[in-house]
């Protein structure tokens, strides 16, 4: 400790002595600019293919900055002539950040915001239509004509491109990234891999298992089921009704395709049954008593011990952290990994938990601002990102033989060492450069063999699986998580997902006000429903409070949007 203190004092003394230099900020700036220029000139000599343009980009999402001397960023700059400095959201909401940006009137070259409408209103963005037409190949592959139309603003221009959600070739998705009822493979193994299709069956298995095995090997008590309800993460508790009724993840509402009407799943019979079942389970002691008050951190910690047998959640919300811990602690070998179940209210119904289609969210994307130094070059780079496989591989796989290797069949793979290195944050900052909010593909790459992104590569996926998980997949005849949940393959309507509209509702309209109030009421009452000692009367009270929010205003506005697709 003493030594540490000393070094710290020394360090601060050092800082004080260099202070003279920093008081004069302009000096620092000019030196860094010079540095950039000298790098640029080196690149020029090597490539002699034009100058490197430095672009700035602001993204209203939290993210990690890469170092200014990032190696792959430099390679990209050398070859494609563009280097982007990304700045991410910190400590503000996206709306606030966009608001201040507009107020200041100074924009970065690229911007990716959740508040695109505001930026268009402010005249901050340049229309991209002409640029898009200059690259017909890009125009054709990136979106369909109908999809492009969704991006067209009331003034007839397209201002931004969503960089995500495009699958090239055959889908290589192995994980069910969406919502599901999850269950540990050890429970299924113990029960002899039964077919589980309804909530009754699901809770029956959990109950039987916990009766037979009240604790884990090390004596930790098993928790049959928990639900995360913290803040916005309560959606899993909230929207199961739509899935149980066999509808896809439209989010805030159900779309009845036959009648083309919006239905409110909050008041549906399926939802009521769902909560009734949870209530019954809670009163039988099957649900974690602290479910309603746990924070996200606590929830993750709980799952990481392997003691939670089942829960409802979306994969990305828990799996990355939890699976790593399982691996480290050897819990994956004990069958603690979770697999998704596609439950429905009644036996024999189709389930639509998994979204196979590309989800095009027209509400956000990347745009070029009026302050951009060189819009032509900026747009060309957007196209390069989408169309140049070499660039794509460099961004997501890294440098060949450094970050990944190629086997005799031309398949990319990462050695254990490479995998470790790529997971290292300082290596990510100094070497890897994804430009993760520029256009990108999932699915199979243009070579027809490899996945566009390492995490979707079959070999990468299989390498990580423990035996109990493999056994479980085999028992159900599934190759991966997507097979496991077994959703119906179906093309969603052009309106899908409806949540991309409701997320943009503001309190300017009665529907927006109702939507916000409904959320508040549900936050309070849904846990109460689960914990109630008299379900029927609590449900009635909840319905009274819910209807007081005027949900009909919200539904009516959603219907108006749906009607535009008729």
């Amino acid at each position, binding site marked *: 400790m003493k030594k540490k203190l000393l070094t710290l004092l020394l360090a601060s003394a050092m800082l004080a002595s260099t202070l003279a230099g*920093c*008081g004069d900020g302009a000096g620092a700036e000019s030196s860094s600019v010079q540095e950039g220029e000298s790098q640029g000139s080196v690149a020029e000599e090597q490539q002699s293919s034009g100058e490197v343009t430095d672009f700035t980009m602001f993204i209203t999402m939290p993210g990690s900055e890469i170092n200014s001397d990032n190696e792959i960023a430099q390679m990209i700059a050398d070859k494609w002539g563009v280097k982007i400095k990304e700045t991410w959201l910190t400590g503000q909401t996206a709306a606030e950040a966009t608001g201040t940006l507009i107020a200041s009137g100074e924009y970065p070259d690229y911007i990716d915001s959740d508040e695109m409408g505001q930026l268009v209103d402010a005249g901050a963005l340049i229309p991209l239509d002409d640029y898009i037409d200059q690259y017909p190949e890009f125009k054709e592959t990136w979106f369909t004509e109908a999809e492009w139309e969704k991006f067209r603003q009331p003034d007839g221009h397209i201002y931004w491109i969503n960089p995500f959600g495009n699958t090239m070739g055959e889908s290589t998705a192995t994980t069910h990234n969406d919502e599901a009822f999850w269950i540990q493979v050890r429970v299924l193994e113990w029960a002899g891999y039964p077919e589980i299709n309804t909530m009754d069956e699901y809770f029956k298995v959990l109950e039987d298992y916990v009766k037979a095995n009240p604790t884990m090997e090390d004596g930790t008590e098993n928790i049959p089921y928990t639900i995360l309800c913290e803040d916005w993460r309560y959606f899993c508790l909230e929207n199961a009704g739509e899935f149980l009724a066999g509808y896809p993840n439209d989010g805030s509402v159900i779309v009845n395709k036959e009648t083309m009407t919006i239905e409110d799943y909050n008041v549906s019979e399926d939802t009521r049954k769902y909560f009734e079942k949870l209530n019954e389970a809670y009163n039988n002691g099957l649900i974690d008593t602290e479910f309603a008050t746990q924070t996200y951190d606590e929830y993750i910690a709980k799952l990481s*011990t392997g003691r939670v047998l089942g829960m409802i959640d979306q994969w990305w*919300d828990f799996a*990355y952290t939890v699976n790593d811990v399982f691996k480290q602690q050897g819990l994956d070998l004990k069958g603690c990994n979770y697999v998704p179940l596609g439950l429905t209210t009644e036996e024999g119904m189709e389930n639509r938990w998994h979204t196979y289609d590309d989800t095009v969210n027209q509400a956000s994307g990347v745009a070029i601002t009026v302050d951009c130094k060189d819009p032509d070059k900026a747009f060309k780079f957007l196209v390069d990102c989408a169309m140049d496989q070499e660039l794509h591989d460099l961004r997501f796989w890294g440098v060949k033989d450094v970050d990944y290797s190629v086997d005799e069949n031309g398949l990319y793979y990462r050695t254990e060492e490479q995998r470790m290195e790529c*997971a290292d944050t*300082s290596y990510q900052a100094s070497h890897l450069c994804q430009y993760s909010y520029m256009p990108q593909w999932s699915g199979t790459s243009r070579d027809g063999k490899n996945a566009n992104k390492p995490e979707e590569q079959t070999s990468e996926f299989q390498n990580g699986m423990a035996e109990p998980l493999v056994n479980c997949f085999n028992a159900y005849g599934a190759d991966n998580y997507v097979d496991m949940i077994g959703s119906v393959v179906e093309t969603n309507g052009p309106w899908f997902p409806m949540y991309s509209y409701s997320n943009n509702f503001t309190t300017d309209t009665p529907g927006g006000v109702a939507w916000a109030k409904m959320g508040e009421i549900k936050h309070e009452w849904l846990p109460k429903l689960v914990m109630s000692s008299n379900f029927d009367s609590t449900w009635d009270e909840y319905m009274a409070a819910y209807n007081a929010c005027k949900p009909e205003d919200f539904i009516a506005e959603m219907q108006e949007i749906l009607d535009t697709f008729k």
Partner: protein
Amino acid sequence: MEKTANMTEVKTTGGTTKKKSKGIKTHYDSKIFTVINSLIMIIFVVVTLYPVLNTVAISFNDGIDAVRGGIYLWPRKFAIKNYETVLAMENLITGAKITVARTVLGTLSALVVNALLAFVVSRKKFIFKSQLSLFWIITMYVNGGMIPVFLLYRNMHLTGTFWVYVIPGMVSAWNMLVIRTYMQGLPDSLEESAQLDGAGYMTVFMKIISPLCKPVYATVALFVAVGQWNSWFDAMLYNRMKTEYTTLQYELMKLLSSVMQQSGSAAAASERGAAAAAITPLTIRAAATVVTILPIICLYPFLQRYFVTGLTIGGVKE
């Protein structure tokens, strides 16, 4: 001038006489008081210290292991990865320099201005005494919101400069009132006799009031310094794209929010397939906290000297 010297002298002698008379008055109940008081202090220290030590322990623990909980005063799986991550930030040195610069400049300027203002409003005969106080008190409770303030700074060409950290926060009504209250507690006779000797207000301020105000100046300096040291919001708001004016805390915040995004917002995570690393928000947060606290704990003994000087002048009883 002479008067002040006299005064301090009197006080010191007062202190020593008391030390001499120590022991004579040690009552039985005084002993009980000491015991109970010590007990209270010990409980206080334990309750206070435990979470701090716990944070330190977590900061030295492996990230994924820490998620399982159950770490108390000692790391279970020792790792310095968290500190490596925190200290590997590219702009750490720039941020540290700027933070030190703004802390030093900001504290000095704020101290001078607040002390002057406090001196003015604590003069009993000053003609606008209550109006000026009210003028500043109101500023504590009203603000125009983020956007108007932003526009003002931009029009004054403060945005995108280092000075946006120093100039706007120079006067703080709160700190001014703290100094004022202390000044009001000083005997009026000091000022009156000096003025009889022909001293102007500035001389009174420099030569008589300020030397006596060391404890409160140290207090306010600490408040301002800590505020400056910890601030990041202004760096983000006004110098977002200017890496050369980044601050230490802003860099830490950036790091934190980027680690958190691993388990963060729906769209981001589902769309980018996160690369999970062995650090988690929990441990990074702890390490960042420790990095933040350490310099201030190192700085504190220097400021504390002034408190202690004050304490020996006025505080030693029996």
